[in-house]
């Protein structure tokens, strides 16, 4: 057990103008699950890229010792040959190829360039069995969910005789059931003697599986914690990550709740693609002024779909139901009309749906309400600059200037730009879909603070989140969704992780 399989010594990696890694040391024992944690930008992914040869030897300083010898990997193929396999956060699967084709892509079972299909399928079947995936090898990647895709990636790694498996945020886009299955699989591999490194933001999961935890901060190693020697609490890990104790992860707030703003009644929506399948059933809810309302639920419960179908019918079809604002029926049939009715929707996918990444902060800020800084279709540059500067300082967007491109901002600052854009449309009700996904703890706190401020200004906030502690920490009231229905409404006092899960489970039994 105390056999060191990997040791990285004094790794320093510089990009033009930035020292991404500064003298990092990292030691992994054979047969353990080693968690690598740290805020965004702490250098976790960079370290793994150094290890796997994405950044070839010579572009960094320091030494890598693997399996008792110093190694200098020039390419990813070099590290893969020794059994170091990395699974990136963005899955590297070809959607329109089958599971079998993906697993053996670049590594085909072939003689003289002709693929041996029967053998390919047989070996795929064996690998799928190992990862517990019950799908035909001929199934296309696009036809299976993200959870199963993740398993295919692991099967692919197994096909390469993996000894050290590196997973970069493997559960970021998985629901709880799939996450649990994945973690269980990792523990099973550990029993078989495989070593894994897991990068994750989900501290509860790390606590569950990790043998050791290494914490990085600002490109340096802070400490390595041994989970068997002492009981490591989440707060203990957070303290290491942010460099100070986080007494309160959620800023305090005195709710002042007013009249009902948004009310949705009997909202029925059919699936966007499978057009005869009803996806949302009689969804009804309301949001009052100054109130933060949460929607909890598992992935696929229909939360995002509810929000998007209300916001200009941008999801689904055959949409029926009633939407009122301050008691008056409003037309939300197109996005411009929904904006006019006082709605704003901050998407869960800020890179694909929230930002024009190649545009700068200013251009993104004014995009949804360009007419407010223009007269007769001509943009008033002074007005636009002022609006963008105001939001930049108000939301504390960290950047060189309002002319910095959105693509160069950190996740938290990108999210603040998206928020700026929607605040500038002056909405009455903001729907925030996973507003803190993929951003670090410090930035999360700032987002919560902004949410509190907005509520204090009398706006209604509808917050969708997969992180239950976040909902419990910020919301005045929580709706629970499951399988396209609202299955419970919990007051702040009633709400707890247990009561939410219970509501989901009980509703599952009924159907």
């Amino acid at each position, binding site marked *: 057990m105390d056999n060191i399989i990997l040791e990285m010594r004094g790794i320093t990696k510089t990009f033009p103008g930035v020292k991404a890694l500064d003298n990092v040391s990292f030691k992994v024992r054979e047969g353990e699950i080693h968690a690598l944690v740290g805020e965004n930008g702490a250098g976790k992914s960079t370290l793994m890229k150094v290890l796997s040869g994405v950044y070839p030897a010579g572009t960094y300083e320091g030494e890598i010792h693997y399996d008792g010898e110093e190694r200098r990997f020039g390419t990813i193929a070099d590290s893969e040959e020794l059994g170091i396999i990395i699974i990136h956060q963005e899955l590297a699967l070809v959607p329109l190829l089958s599971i079998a084709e993906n697993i053996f892509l670049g590594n085909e079972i072939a003689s003289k360039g002709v693929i041996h299909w029967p053998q390919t399928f047989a070996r795929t079947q064996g690998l799928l069995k190992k990862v517990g995936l019950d799908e035909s090898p001929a199934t296309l990647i696009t036809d299976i969910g993200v959870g199963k895709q993740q398993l295919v990636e692991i099967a692919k790694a197994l096909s390469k005789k993996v000894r050290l498996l590196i997973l970069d945020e493997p559960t970021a886009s998985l629901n709880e059931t799939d996450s649990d299955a994945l973690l269980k699989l990792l523990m099973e591999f550990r029993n078989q003697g495989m070593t894994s490194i897991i990068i994750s933001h989900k501290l509860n999961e790390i606590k569950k599986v990790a043998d050791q935890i290494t914490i990085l901060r600002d490109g340096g190693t802070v400490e390595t914690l041994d989970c068997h020697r002492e009981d490591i609490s989440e707060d203990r890990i957070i303290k290491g990550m942010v460099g100070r104790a986080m007494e309160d992860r959620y800023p305090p707030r005195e709710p002042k709740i007013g009249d009902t703003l948004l009310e949705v009644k009997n909202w029925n929506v059919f699936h966007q693609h499978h057009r005869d399948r009803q996806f949302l059933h009689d969804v009804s809810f309301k949001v009052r002024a100054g109130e933060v309302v949460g929607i909890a639920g598992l992935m696929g419960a229909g939360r995002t779909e509810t929000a998007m179908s209300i916001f200009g019918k941008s999801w689904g079809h055959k949409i029926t139901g009633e939407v009122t604002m301050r008691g008056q029926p409003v037309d939300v049939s197109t996005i411009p009309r929904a904006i006019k009715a006082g709605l704003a929707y901050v998407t869960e996918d800020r890179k694909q749906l929230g930002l024009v990444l190649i545009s700068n902060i200013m*251009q993104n800020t004014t995009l949804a309400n360009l007419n407010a800084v223009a007269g007769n279709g001509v*943009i008033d540059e002074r007005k636009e600059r002022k609006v963008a500067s105001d939001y930049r300082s108000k939301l504390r967007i960290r950047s060189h200037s309002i002319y910095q491109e959105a693509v160069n901002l950190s996740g938290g600052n990108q999210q603040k730009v998206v928020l700026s854009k929607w605040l500038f449309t002056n909405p009455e009700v903001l729907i925030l879909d996973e507003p803190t996904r993929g951003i670090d703890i410090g930035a999360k706190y700032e987002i919560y603070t902004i949410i509190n401020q907005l509520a204090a200004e009398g706006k209604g906030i509808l917050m969708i989140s997969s992180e239950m502690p976040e909902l419990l920490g910020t919301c005045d009231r929580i709706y629970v969704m499951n399988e396209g229905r609202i299955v419970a409404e919990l007051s702040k006092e009633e709400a707890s992780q247990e009561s939410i899960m219970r509501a989901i489970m009980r509703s599952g039994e009924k159907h």
Partner: protein
Amino acid sequence: MVADTSTHTTKPSIGDYLRNNIREYGLLVALVIIMLFFQFVTNGVLFKPVNITNLVLQNSFIVIMALGMLLIIVAGHIDLSVGSIVAFVGAISAIMLVKWGLPAFVVIPACLVVGGIMGAAQGYWVAYQKIPSFIVTLAGMLVFRGMTYVVLGGRPIGPFPKDFQILSTGFVPDFLYFLSPSPEIIKNMVALVAVLALVGYAIFAGLRNRRINEQHGTENEPFVFFAVQMAVIGFVALFIGFQLSTYRGLPNVLIVMGVLIAVYTFITTRSTIGRRVYAMGGNEKATKLSGINTERLTFYAFVNMGVLAALAGMIITARLNSATPKAGVGFELDVIAACFIGGASASGGVGKITGAVIGAFIMGVMNNGMSIMGIGIDYQQLIKGLVLLAAVFFDVYNKNKGKG
């Protein structure tokens, strides 16, 4: 990693500035070098007044179409049909003018409308039916070419009445002749005065812009660059203006082109429509979710392209004084190449009018220079292809270097 908490702005060195803006300066420098090169190898023919006039007349339609094509490319699309629209509009203008005897002031707007309809016919499929523009306009290219053959019956029609030809071969009359210091040399005073006024205004506007930027704490380009740029552009403009004034003055087409360049520069840099087109090209889904009618925007980009192609079609037809079924073959490629040489991105969201115009001039000067040198069409194509590849490679190379 870029989280710069403070708001201080370090003053970038001139070297940094040059590196960050190498594309824009590079383009201008390339144009100047190409012009000097051909001036040298053609023994000074390139800048002869008559040749400058020819250059303008031969390339105006490429520039005009590049304005519309830039919007299409920035929006994330492509239009392969413009050469065929040129031919079809030329054909129907011939029928209306020559066969039906309609006056030019009726035919010209009617043709612009026809061009708009042709653009709309394609824009509908791209914007509302979500068919890739490459396919729609490839179909359009074939359909419109076929229609041209049908309406012309396979035979050229011409010649055209004089008032229609003014569009392409006319010159601005010299109403300032009495100012000319020596009428033997300077035969057209308007050209000189107009160019002087323009250069003066450009310097004035440039200085004013810098002052406004300074007041708002926006970064200016280093003064050296501003001065050198102004000096080069000013010198070239004055030289060309002088040369033109010793010949027949300003071609009408040059005026049309200049006005359109100004209008489209304004649209792309200052208007809400322009901003939305760039946003749409950068991320269509995010733009749509921001409440912008991206379908309508795409549709109008194609309508606009159709109108500009129709204008170009009339200019070409008037210049050739005959409508032929083969007019405009391959023009789409010159126009698209001009945009890409000018720095537009094939994936949308990036590109400038000034870039596309300079790109068009680079193509034009090369066409013209190589023709004077007597290089055959075979080698001309080969060289133009390599220049396009080199320009785009330069872009990609710079971008990758920037990433480190």
